């Protein structure tokens, strides 16, 4: 059984849990309490040197970085659950393009907004509203490009769902809901259609409130 070391509510931990659900991979979550700073304990840092969650122990093989863990699990179990990374070279290149779009044209901005509007208040800190507006100003034209891409195809890499789409869910859900920016997605029809599709997947519903 895959041992997942992470925090139930953590975005990156829930991405790995989501992939496990999509691929029917059983996992066992061992809690690393971020509110107590357990991820900075020397025993944790000895395994994950950046002091970040999650990491997995798959029969003694240790791996960290949630997107790397996701790719590893998807490739290890190609014949069960949802196919999430194509193998045809052209389709794979378009998947890599979409995966990079998620990292640099979405999460780069959305994670900053979620940090200010959701994580800081949870720790009793005030959001930096100027920074939020700056990040939103950068994000909105990116989402216009998403809307254009998604007017021509069902998902970000083509007409089949891939890991690239699913990687948007943890931060995207916090942006849409708790951060209060649903309208930013809803006002873009193709983006909104795609968001409704991926965010209603049973695998996401199973983990969105805790890995």
């Amino acid at each position, binding site marked *: 059984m895959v041992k997942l070391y992470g925090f139930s509510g953590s975005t990156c931990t829930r991405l790995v849990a989501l992939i496990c659900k999509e691929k029917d991979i059983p996992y066992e979550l061992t809690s690393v309490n971020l509110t107590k700073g357990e991820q900075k304990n020397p025993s944790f840092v000895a395994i994950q040197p*950046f002091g970040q969650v999650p990491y997995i122990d798959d029969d003694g093989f240790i791996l960290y*970085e949630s997107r790397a863990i996701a*790719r*590893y699990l998807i490739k290890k179990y190609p014949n069960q659950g949802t196919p999430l990374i194509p193998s045809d070279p052209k389709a794979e*290149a378009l998947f890599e393009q979409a995966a*990079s779009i998620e990292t640099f044209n979405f999460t780069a901005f959305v994670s900053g907004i979620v940090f200010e509007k959701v994580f800081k208040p949870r720790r009793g800190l005030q959001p930096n509203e100027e920074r939020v507006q700056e990040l939103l100003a950068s994000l909105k034209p990116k989402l216009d490009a998403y809307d254009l891409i998604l007017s021509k195809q069902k998902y970000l890499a083509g007409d089949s769902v891939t890991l690239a789409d699913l990687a948007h869910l943890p931060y995207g859900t916090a942006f849409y809901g708790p951060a209060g920016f649903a309208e930013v997605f809803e006002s873009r029809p193709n983006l909104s259609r795609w968001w409704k599709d991926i965010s209603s997947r049973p695998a996401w519903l199973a983990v969105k409130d805790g890995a």
Partner: protein
Amino acid sequence: MVLKLYGFTTSTCTLRVAVVLKEKNVPFEFIPVDLTKGAHKAPEFTAYQPFGQVPYIDDNGLILYESRAICRYIAAKYASQGTPLLPTDPTATALFEQAASTETSNYDPFVSGLAWELKFAMWFGGKTDEARAKLLQSQLSAKLDVYNVILGKQKYLAGNDITLADLFHLPYGSVLLGIGLDEFSSRPNVARWWKDISSRASWEAVKGGI
């Protein structure tokens, strides 16, 4: 038809693709896109790259953008020529993906943010946000302390062989060194690794601009 690389001669992301093309001995035609004249926002450009960013490639009709995606495509397509840059066995592949993700989340946001604040903001009529630059530098410093630990145990970021993950660090690392921000030299393992990857012939060939 030779591969066409659309980009800006000194753009970090364009150079990221160029260094990999050189490592893999893949001939290419460079088609300059003048960022200073806003050519990347023109309809003829955004028809191919909807985010209005460089670079993109046209490989015999296959249009691909996002520099790291382009690099992965080239490294896979030309696996049997030039330097091997992507492992094939599953464990080594997983450790490569860990290293590639480390670059995107524990390096790029800080180095690109610093490059913007200390150099590129001024190109677009902005100015340095000193507080932000200071924060980014301290964050980068902490991350590179971890790199120093990792690189004390192995030669490259994914193990003992060079991979794309190492090369991805070159463009922004070079920009920061060029403006006098050196967070590498004081960390012996990072310094060794940086010297190794930045002295490769492929990087020497493109670092000054295509």
